[in-house]
C-alpha cells in the first residue's frame, strides 16, 4: 500500500508510568502500525497489557514518551472530533436527553448550522440506530444496549474519519453484545469509517475486523498480525474462522 492512503501511522511509540517509588514501569514498548483508510483493524491482547494506554495515545488524551502518531500525515497533539472514542464504561451524558446527547457533538463542527438542522440530524441518526421514539428519554430510562446505540449515534453524527472502539460492548450481556456487532457492521456498510477496535474477545475481532493484530504482554509490542479474508456476514462456527481463532489464541499462549 502506498503511504498517502494511510489514515493512521503509528511510529515506534513507547509509554511508561512512574510508580510511587519513582521506578518507571514500561507499558507500551515500541509499537509501529499503519491503518489504511476505511480499514477495520482489531487489536487483541491479554488483560493489562496496555491496550487502553495505547488507545489513549492514539486518541490524543496522552502523549507517547517516544515515537509519534500521525493521522492523514499530521501528528496528533490532542483529542479531536475527527477521531471519536467509544469505551467500555460509555460516556453518554446522563443529564441530557437522547436527542440532546446526539446534538452535543455538533457544537464543535460545522455539519449543521441551525438548531432545526441539528435536531433533524439527531433524529435521523436516532432512527438509524433504532432509537426512534426515544429521542426525549433520559439515559437512566434506557437499557445498556440502548445506551450503546446512543453512544454510537453520537459518534456517527459528527462524521468522524476514525472510530476508536475500546472494548465497546464488553459491558453488555452476550446476546446484546452479538446484536450490537451486527448493528455496527450494518451502519459501517452505510457510512464507511476507519475503525480501530481494541478487545480481548478474539471472536469479536474475527467477526468484524479486516485485520487483527495481537499484542504481547507488558511492555506491549506487536506479536503477530492476521488478515481476515472472509466475506460478511461471517460465521464464527466456520472452519476458517475456527482455524484463525486457534492461531490467535496460540499467539496469546492459550
Amino acid at each position: 500500500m502506498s503511504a498517502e492512503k494511510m489514515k493512521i501511522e503509528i511510529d515506534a511509540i513507547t509509554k511508561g508510568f512512574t510508580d510511587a517509588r519513582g521506578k518507571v514501569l514500561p507499558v507500551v514498548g515500541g509499537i509501529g502500525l499503519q491503518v489504511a483508510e476505511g480499514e477495520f483493524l482489531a487489536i487483541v491482547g491479554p488483560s493489562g497489557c496496555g491496550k487502553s494506554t495505547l488507545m489513549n495515545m492514539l486518541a490524543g488524551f496522552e502523549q507517547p514518551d517516544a515515537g509519534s502518531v500521525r493521522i492523514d500525515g499530521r501528528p496528533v497533539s490532542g483529542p479531536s472530533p475527527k477521531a471519536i472514542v467509544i469505551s467500555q464504561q460509555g460516556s453518554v451524558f446522563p443529564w441530557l436527553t437522547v436527542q440532546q446527547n446526539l446534538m452535543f457533538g455538533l457544537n464543535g463542527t460545522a455539519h449543521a448550522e441551525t438548531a432545526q438542522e441539528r435536531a433533524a440530524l439527531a433524529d435521523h441518526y436516532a432512527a438509524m440506530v433504532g432509537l426512534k421514539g426515544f429521542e426525549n428519554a433520559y439515559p437512566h430510562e434506557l437499557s445498556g444496549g440502548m445506551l450503546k446505540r446512543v453512544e454510537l449515534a453520537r459518534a456517527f453524527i459528527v462524521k468522524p474519519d476514525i472510530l476508536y472502539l475500546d472494548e465497546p460492548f464488553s459491558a453488555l450481556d452476550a446476546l446484546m453484545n452479538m446484536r450490537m456487532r451486527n448493528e455496527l457492521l450494518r451502519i459501517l456498510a452505510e457510512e464507511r469509517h476507519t475503525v480501530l477496535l481494541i478487545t480481548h474477545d478474539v471472536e469479536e475481532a474475527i467477526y468484524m475486523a479486516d485485520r487483527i493484530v495481537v499484542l504481547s504482554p507488558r511492555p506491549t509490542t506487536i506479536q503477530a498480525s492476521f488478515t481476515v479474508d472472509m466475506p460478511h456476514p461471517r460465521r464464527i462456527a466456520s472452519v476458517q474462522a475456527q482455524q484463525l481463532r486457534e492461531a490467535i489464541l496460540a499467539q496469546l499462549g492459550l
Partner: protein
Amino acid sequence: MTSRTTRWDSWPARVVPPMLVIGAIVALWWWVVARDDSAIFPTPWAVLTGAWELVKDGTLFEHIGASLMRVGIGFGLALVVAIPLGLWMGWVTPAYRTLNPLFQMLRPISPIAWIPLAILWFGVGNVSPVFLIFISSVFPMVVQTISGVHTIERRYLRAAANFGVPRSVLFRQVVIPAVLPEVVVGMRIGIGVAWLVVVAAEMIALHSGLGYLIMDSRNAGNRYDLVVASMVIIGLIGLLLDGLTRLLERLKTVRWRYVR
C-alpha cells in the same frame, strides 16, 4: 423510571408513623405537666391557645415574615456568591490551592461567634442577621459546589474534549449540569443552617422575628406557652424549607443522580 410502589411508599405509610411518634411525645408532655402541676411550664393546650392569641392579633405572621425575609436575603446572596465561586475554585486548581485553606479555617467557626462582630460592624438592624445568614450558608454551598466539580467523572470531560466543543458549551452542557446535584445538596445544608442562625441572631439583636418572639415572651412575664409555641413554629417552618429545597431534586436535569 421503574415504578417501585411498595406499601412503604404509599402516603399513609409515610405520614402515619411520624405522626404517631409526635402524638406520643405530646401525650407524655401533657401527662408529666399535669401530674407535676407546674405553675410555669405550659401544657400542649396552653401552647395552642397562646399561639392562637398571636395569630388573632397578627403579630405571629409579622414575626414569621421578618425571619423569612432575613433568611431569604442572606441565603439568596450566599447562593449568588457560592455557585460561581465554587465553580471557579473547583475548576481552576491554583484558585483552589490558594483559597481552600482560608475557607477551611473560616468554615468551622460557629455563626454565633460572629454575632459580636456583626453588631459592631452593622449595628442591631436588619443587616446583622442577613450578614450572619450569609456567612453561615455561603461556606457549605461553596464547599459542596467545589466537591461537585472535583467529582465530575473523567469519562464525561474526555467525551467533551473528544468532540472539541467550545468552552461555553463545555460549561453549559457538561460542567454545570454535572455539578447541579451537589449544588442542591449544598442548598439543603445552607438553608438549614440559615434558619438555625436567624433565630439565634434575632434573640440577641432585634425587635422582630421568631427569635425575638422567644426572648420577648420570656422577658415579658414568663410566657412560656409562647416560648414553646415559637419553637414549634420554627421547627415546622424548618421542615417546610427543607421540603421546598428537596423539590429541586425532582428537576429533570438533576434526577439522574438520584435514580439507580
